[in-house]
């Protein structure tokens, strides 16, 4: 077990808390950099998708996990980012410029959603985001002169960046670099006054307001930043998947992103990454499991949906803090061995107060 002696106020907000952090995350980084030499092309593809979903998950985590606003429309931001990137790349914009434009477009959409969010909360906000998602999906399908409509839109390889990102390892490193810098941005944000305001608004709007936090502005900022990150993921997604159609950005996609955040662990940056790994690995695991199941179950069309549903329900009931919460418990058990007490992480049950005027 490690004892930290605090000799400096900065220690409370330092990103690298102690040498263990430096060692393990350094090891992880080295592994990730070495990945293209170690794994097959197929697995590298999956790793790229994990990176993309991790960025989108980070964006959604800002809103859901840290600001306490439920969004069921994040697929719209993903779509806006992806389509902006695809269209601008087709017009010959270099990658850094088109990505910035995609991020800006998604962020402005986020501000527009943030506007109703100023007045409504809880379930009303969730429905407002569903509504926005539906509208964006419909626009993508109907604005055929620009988006290609339901026929879809193929995406060319990114321009600029010295042409090295066309091939698989190049694009992998690009995704990795963007994912790592997004994580650092989010971590830095969360230890800044803005990020702390997010958490304050999540825990109690009333007390946040009493502390002098501008609740409306904070929520809008959260939505804009979240949409920007998701748009960034969308831009990478466009290049990776190479073919966009509106049915990739439906409410179901939003629900999958929400599931990512929830399974990973609401309110933790680790959770976004763990959730992305989970979301990408799950269909593969189901495909593998199919071979071992009787054909009546393994071949059924609804299997994936049923497994998704069962997992969501299972996580809510048994591990509401998600994969990261489980890891925290395991780590605590190991650190305390053999003195772990069963009740340490027991869930406290309280009668729910109304959330209508929290």
């Amino acid at each position: 077990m490690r004892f930290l002696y605090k000799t400096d106020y900065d220690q409370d907000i330092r990103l690298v808390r102690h040498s263990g952090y430096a060692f393990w995350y350094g090891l992880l980084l080295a592994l990730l950099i070495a990945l293209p030499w170690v794994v097959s092309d197929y697995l590298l593809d999956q790793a790229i998708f994990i990176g993309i979903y991790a960025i989108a998950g980070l964006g959604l985590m800002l809103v859901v996990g840290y600001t306490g606003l439920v969004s069921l429309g994040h697929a719209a931001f993903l779509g806006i980012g992806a389509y902006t990137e695809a269209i601008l790349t087709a017009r010959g914009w270099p990658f850094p410029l088109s990505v910035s434009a995609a991020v800006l477009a998604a962020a402005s959409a986020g501000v527009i959603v943030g506007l109703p969010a100023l007045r409504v909360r809880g379930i009303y906000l969730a429905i407002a985001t569903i509504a926005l998602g539906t509208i964006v999906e419909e626009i993508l399908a109907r604005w055929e002169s620009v988006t290609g409509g339901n026929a879809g839109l193929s995406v060319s390889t990114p321009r600029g960046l010295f042409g090295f990102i066309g091939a698989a390892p190049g694009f992998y490193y690009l995704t990795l670099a963007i994912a790592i810098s997004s994580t650092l941005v989010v971590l830095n944000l969360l230890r800044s006054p803005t990020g702390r305001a997010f958490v304050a608004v999540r825990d109690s709007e009333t007390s946040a307001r009493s502390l002098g936090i501008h609740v409306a502005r904070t929520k809008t900022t959260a939505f804009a930043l979240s949409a920007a990150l998701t748009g960034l993921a969308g831009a990478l997604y466009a290049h990776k998947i190479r073919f966009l159609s509106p049915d990739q950005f439906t409410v179901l996609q939003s629900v999958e992103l929400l599931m990512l955040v929830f399974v990973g662990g609401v309110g933790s940056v680790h959770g976004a990454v763990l959730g992305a790994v989970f979301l990408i690995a799950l269909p593969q695991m189901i495909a593998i499991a199919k071979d071992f199941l009787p054909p009546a179950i393994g071949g059924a069309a609804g299997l994936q949906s049923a497994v998704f549903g069962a997992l969501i329900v299972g996580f809510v009931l048994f591990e509401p803090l998600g994969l990261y919460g489980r890891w925290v418990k395991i780590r605590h058990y190991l650190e305390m061995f053999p003195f772990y007490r069963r009740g340490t992480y027991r869930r406290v049950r309280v009668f729910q107060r109304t959330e209508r005027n929290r």
Partner: protein
Amino acid sequence: MQFVQIVIGGISQGFVYGLVALGFVLIYKATEAVNFAQGELMMLGAFCGLALATWAGLPYWAVLLGSVAILAAFGFATEFVLLRPVFGEPSFSAIMVTIGLGFLARGLVTMIPGFGTDSHSLDAPFKGQVIEAGGLVIGMEHVVIIGAGLLLSATLYGLFRFTRIGIAMQAVSQNQLAAWYVGIPVRRLNGLVWALSAAVAAVAGVLLAPIAFIHANMGFIGLKAFPAAVIGGFDSLPGAIAGGLILGVIEALAGFYLPEGFKDVAASVVVLVVLAVRPHGLFGQASRKRV
């Protein structure tokens, strides 16, 4: 005349939305949780009815009653198994549980070969009959849905307004702890509300069966019923029906007079406007906390 006919079509469609929205409002009003699986409950109700009609050979009205009874039991069980463990946790948990339940229900129904994978229709004794008045035509199926919608919302409104149990439910929705202190069995009431809501969903499912196909994805109508509930106010039972009506009529008119595509986004646009102008809906209660 054409205009009136379109409006009538919209009204009958609106009552379908309203019936599903009633289920949302019931659960929200009493437990402050939102049931994202309401559309799937309706789908289960329709499939229950289909099973009773094809395998047990029951007549339509017996199918309706049987399906309502089965779904009520299912709703009670769902509350007991899935919702009670997350009782007292942030509403986000309840939202996720119901989303998961929706996925699970849709997946499991689709996994039944030849039953969940296909579209079915259910015959009703009044199917195909029409009422004609002054050049206007309305199908008997729609008349039944309209009647059921009015009857259910009036009954439920009466239940919440005038009976002991309904007032207890209102108390629970406002403050669970205080309700517990004054001796209201909070948990049992929540189970009862879920049973009621699932029963309403079954009514909607079985009544919808003669005019729409029964298939595993019919629960997505729940996404249309959300805007209906928001327009009427999420905590108002008559509001749910009214919201459904407004939505149905707007959709029907948009589908006829506006270019293609507007019909599908009409619900979303209306809901955003309502949220921006009157966040608590037309009939909802606004509440605000002074600091």
